């Protein structure tokens, strides 16, 4: 076991993937000489060379489209999008090519791309640097969407994503890059929990609280706070947003009868909408209350000084928990 930050764990995972398969190439803006603006690829160009860790021209469609061509040729491109809000110029190539080429070619052409996206807010950044665009991709057939939340998962999941023959949107909780944790760098990938499986990160009996990415930590804190208040929360780190591991989520909800979902993205059509709808479909008779969503507002990401009034935090999550429990809460007395 080594103690690594989440960022360093990703770096280590990328290094291992590069070493294991010479068809793995990293591509992106500033990822080579600089090592990426978050230094996630630090040292990798020096170690593997400029044809394995490629500084590209400033063009997201270009990166994505050439990665498609590389995949055609048998490569496994790992693309870095510098910040969440810069993925949209590459959207067409992702949605119309990356996601559809395996289907279009009737399985002949594989698109084993990994698209790394540092996502989410809470870092006081300028516009376009704090977004949570995961729902766009979860709605896109042909893609897999995952999000890591801690160093151990980051290390394993990035390798699993690269090893996957399907294209994977890999969301990294940028405000947790510096969080430290134990990572087993010797463990074999084969034994690791598949990235499609969710993790129950805190057990509980009263409410199921589902989240992913940076808010996993907040959700755990909420569970601890709630416990002091006599409420037992089961926290699930979803890890995979598409497909969702409903087996794990359902098992929990069937026991607790109550579901709270939290994410930074806006509510309208967010990942929480699908979760709430699917869980309601799958275990309606077990639900004691409607699933509650605690999300960012449906607004463009606000200026830094307002972001704490946008992002779900411990208090807002606990307010959601109160709501699902029918305890006094911010909406008490308001007709839903």
């Amino acid at each position, binding site marked *: 076991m080594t103690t690594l930050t989440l960022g360093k764990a990703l770096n280590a995972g990328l290094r291992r993937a590069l070493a294991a398969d010479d068809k793995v190439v990293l591509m992106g803006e500033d990822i080579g000489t600089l090592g990426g603006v978050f230094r996630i690829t630090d040292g990798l160009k020096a170690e593997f060379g400029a044809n394995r860790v490629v500084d590209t021209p400033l063009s997201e469609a270009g990166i994505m489209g050439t990665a498609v061509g590389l995949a055609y040729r048998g490569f496994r491109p790992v693309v870095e999008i510098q910040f969440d809000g810069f993925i949209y110029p590459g959207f067409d190539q992702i949605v119309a090519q990356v996601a559809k080429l395996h289907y279009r070619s009737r399985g002949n*052409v594989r698109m084993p791309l990994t698209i790394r996206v540092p996502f989410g807010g809470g870092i006081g950044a300028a516009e376009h640097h704090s977004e949570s665009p995961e729902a766009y991709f979860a709605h896109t057939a042909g893609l897999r969407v995952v999000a890591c939340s801690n160093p151990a998962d980051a290390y394993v999941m990035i390798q699993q994503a690269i090893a996957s023959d399907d294209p994977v949107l890999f969301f990294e909780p940028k405000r947790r890059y510096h969080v430290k944790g134990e990572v087993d760098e010797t463990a074999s990938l084969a034994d690791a929990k598949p990235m499609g499986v969710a993790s129950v990160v805190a057990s509980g009996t009263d409410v199921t609280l589902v989240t992913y990415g940076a808010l996993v930590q907040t959700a755990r804190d909420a569970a601890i706070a709630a416990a002091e208040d006599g409420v037992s929360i089961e926290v699930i780190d979803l890890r995979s947003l598409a497909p969702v591991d409903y087996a794990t989520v359902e098992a929990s909800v069937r026991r607790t009868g109550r579901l709270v979902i939290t994410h930074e993205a806006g509510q309208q059509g967010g990942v929480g909408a699908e979760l709430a709808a699917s869980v309601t479909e799958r275990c309606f008779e077990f639900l004691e209350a409607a699933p509650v969503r605690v999300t960012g507002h449906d607004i463009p990401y606000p200026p830094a000084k307002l972001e704490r009034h946008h992002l779900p935090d411990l208090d807002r999550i606990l307010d959601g928990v109160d709501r699902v429990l029918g305890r006094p809460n911010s909406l008490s007395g308001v007709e839903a």
Partner: protein
Amino acid sequence: MTPSDRDATGLLTKPDHFVQLITPAGERRADAEHDPWVADVDAAALGRLYRDMAIVRRLDAEATALQRQGELGLWPPLAGQEAAQIGSARALRDDDFVFTSYREHAVAWCRGVGPAELLTVWRGSASSGWNPYEHGMAVPQIIIGAQALHATGWAMGAAWEGTDAASVAYFGDGATSEGDVNEALVFAASFDAPVVFFCQNNQWAISEPVGLQSKQPLARRADGFGMPGIRVDGNDVLAVLAATRIALDRARRGGGPTFIEAVTYRLGPHTTADDPKRYRTDDELTEWGARDPLTRLLALLGTMGVDIEGLERDIADEAGRAAAELRAAVTTIPDPEPMTVFDHVYAEPNTHLARQRDHYARYLAMFDETDAAASGAAGGAR
């Protein structure tokens, strides 16, 4: 470039602004720079190029007819662009790879794509008709310009692997306005990628004349991106062959990308769904008819002493057989089984889709087996 370089319709077609080895009248023009590249192309070889062009023209007509008869959902005819496609594709090696849009049936012909393979996607029977790796050719691309980036990425990879294979990106004049094509030029130049950008300027993007996309000959776009641009008479198969060989040679030697503008003309509609009478004149058609790629090559072969009547007869026979094969092939394309709608979305198992698939299978199973086979699900049960 002055306004007088444009013809009446604003099209950029002044013939002396491009490489031309065979004039519309069928004369062989001497060209010290380009002749060496086609020194091996003797009368027999020219005859083979003619054969390619004549057969694909016949196949194209047959496919158009098949569409009119309801056997195909749609067909984008290539008529008029045979020289551009055959001249370029015949310059390729097997280990090269081409990324086309939707109109490159003659390229597919050169790459050995068979009749059923060719028609499958236009019949709507499957999302593609062939395995790209069997023919070194990607399946058709409908998103305008997207494939230019794919070709560039493929070429980057080929170079990184140390091979001397090259890729060709085929796209239209309209496509040059899309960001993707311009970004492909940027990447290709930056990485010295062994890719040929082959732009068929057929004067129109559906109803929009090329003058709306560019006020400059498209080949001039190349220089600013740091690569050579060649403007070639796209109705001259020999000139196209020469230009493509030059470009491929440069690519294979590590010289990076080349942009070729093949000046040609789409004689038919954009697709069988289009009505070109709404946007272009008969005069224009007549004008371009006089520049037909087949006529001029036949005339040249005549001056070279080839028995062109015999040649025409043989090729007509062969083309007739190929057309009959095409017609026969269309009905051999199997209608897809309902549940295949779920196949190949993912390469690996996917829990969500597996469940959806299972639900749909149960749904279909509700219907009477015979009904389902005859008419599919709709209306079966009720």
